[in-house]
């Protein structure tokens, strides 16, 4: 029973943490002037 509760807690924790960990800057594009 305790193992089941622990597994459930880990699963719920991963669901909360995973999306936040995926937050990021994916791409940057610049238009520049004066480049030779």
């Amino acid at each position, binding site marked *: 029973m305790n193992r089941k509760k622990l597994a459930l807690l880990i699963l719920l924790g991963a669901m909360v943490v995973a999306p936040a960990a995926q937050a*990021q*800057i994916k791409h*940057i*594009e*610049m238009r520049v002037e004066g480049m030779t």
Partner: protein
Amino acid sequence: MKQHLGRQSGVQSVEVSLIDGKVNVTPKEDGRIDPGQLLKAVYDSGVSVAEMEVTARGKIIKDSSGNLALQTDPNRSFVFAPNEASKGLEPLAGSPTIVTVRGQLYKKPTEKKQKPDASAPLKLLILEVQKKE
């Protein structure tokens, strides 16, 4: 400029197109890159930035001043320049929803006398909301 940008922290690769004057920067996998630092690096290499666009994903938050912002990592967030798209994201503030947006982070001032300030706080003008998860 390419080498200078490539040395900045968080940069995976840099592609420069001389034909259309575009510079594409791919961040490393953790996505922890500082666009303001890149802007400064470009200026330091003697080239001026006309426009900078980013594609980023993160949570919608309200900062300490009550401004709506995109939090891309625990220590970094970009305040939105208000427009219709940012208004549409307001209900998601504080929710766990992850949003992917494409937006303009910098545009060179149009007035010739106005000197560009690369160190000024960058505001994100949302051009497109790509995904909500």
